[in-house]
């Protein structure tokens, strides 16, 4: 149940963020494994390299912040500004990659236990 809730919240948060860009197409893909999961998001919204970099940075915080992730993690998905919301997501996941598909963005989120190995691109 915990995994289901966590996944549904993360999917909600990310789609909420992407829908703010008002895309015409949005694809969400989930791949689950025993000790982890991989979420992919694609949209067709054109973004500058600078915007992409901001998303990438926010989703990959330099330091773990358990004191903020666990308690304030429920805040993500509200109407927080871009940086704060993505950072809250970033604190809760293992790794994120952000690619510019031009037009459109491709965001991969990996989440799971320590034993879950994030595949190298």
């Amino acid at each position, binding site marked *: 149940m915990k995994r289901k809730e966590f996944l549904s919240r993360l999917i909600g948060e990310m789609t909420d963020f992407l829908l703010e860009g008002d895309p015409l197409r949005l694809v969400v893909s989930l791949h689950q494994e025993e000790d982890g999961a991989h979420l992919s998001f694609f949209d067709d919204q054109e973004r500058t390299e600078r915007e992409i970099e901001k998303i990438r940075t926010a989703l990959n915080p330099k*330091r773990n*912040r*358990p*004191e903020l992730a666990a*308690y304030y993690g*429920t*805040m993500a998905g*509200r109407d927080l*500004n871009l940086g*704060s919301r993505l950072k809250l997501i970033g604190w809760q996941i293992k790794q994120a990659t952000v690619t510019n598909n031009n037009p459109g963005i491709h965001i991969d989120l990996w989440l799971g236990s320590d034993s879950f190995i994030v595949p190298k691109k």
Partner: protein
Amino acid sequence: MHKRERTLYLLMLVILCSLTLAGVILEGPEDLLGKLLLLQTRGARLISDFTVHGVGLALLNVASVGFLGLVLVYFAAINLSGPTLATIMTMMGFSFFGNTLYNSTPVIIGVFLASKLAKVSFGSYSIIALFGTAIAPIVTYLSFEIGLAPMIGIPLGIVSGIGIGFILPAIAGTLLSLHQGYSLYNMGFACGFVGLFIASILNALGLLQPLAVLWSESSSLALTLVVPVMSLFFIITAFTLERPGEMLSGFLGVQGQIGRLPSDYYESESPSGTLLNIAVLGLIYWLYVLGVGAPINGPVLGGLLTIMGFGGFGKTVKNTIPIVLGVFLTTLLLGNSPASPSPILAALFSTTLAPLAGQFGFFIGILAGAIHVIVVDVTASWHGGLDLYNNGFAGGLTASLIISVIHWLSANRTREDFT
């Protein structure tokens, strides 16, 4: 550990050691431990100014609780940064009028046990544990104030504190989504919520005593100097971290922040700019207290230290002024003195609503302050003074009301509908 974090640890150690030294000098070395032990048994519900029992003793109590917070942050392996600095400074502030080592520890143990049950690290719940000490007066109350023999009262108080701490994580998360991070003292909201039920039970059992106000009106040079000296420490530390230009631009960057939870200025802006913000906030509101002619006593210092603590976690000069102005104007409008206990504490602690002014502007800030000062006047009696962060409770209610209306208005725009 990063250099910036090491510097912050050093700063806090210097402050805590200075407070200890000042406490020992003022109180004298004679039977210091005995006096400190006696303080643990004193009533801690709102408003119990510990400086009445001795200025030096109160400073020692502040230092001891501050050390507890700092040690917990260190051993919980979390960053000493904006949020954790806010927790430690707030705990220190409330140790002038409520928190002690005796009544705070059981609540922290309760949250620790909850983290074990939830199978998460204590670090994940550390903010809840530290801010959760807002409900600590229940421990002292059950232990020493309802006439039970110590053999029964002390275990009852401790077990109750642990039990309440145990349920705090569940409540804190739920209430956070109610005001959506627009009230900074969310744990005050959560503890007030729990306090309502506890006070009701105590009342049903005939054990809830009426509230009393223990409020020192006398001035003490040592207490008056606490905020300026601490601000000086923060400014000196800011100079050691970055160049003056970076510090100033960081400070201006901090002023542009909304402050909604969780905003760690220490990480998102500049460390030196954040420390300068903390110092400037402390000095501005210290001058406000002196300006309205209120005494610098335990509860007032609690308010000032809390404002400073949140200078790295949501409060700026810009987003706090409208709220305090709202409280000040409403107080005058109602014919009350801004220097009397409730209005002065409301003015200082109302800054819990700073993110509302940060997000929605000056006039919403004034409105929030005006509503807050009226609401906070009655909320303490609801929870029997058991929630030290009474302004956090009232602030949570105020923020929830304002944010509900604003969101309802913004969600009912026809242009966003498919039809």
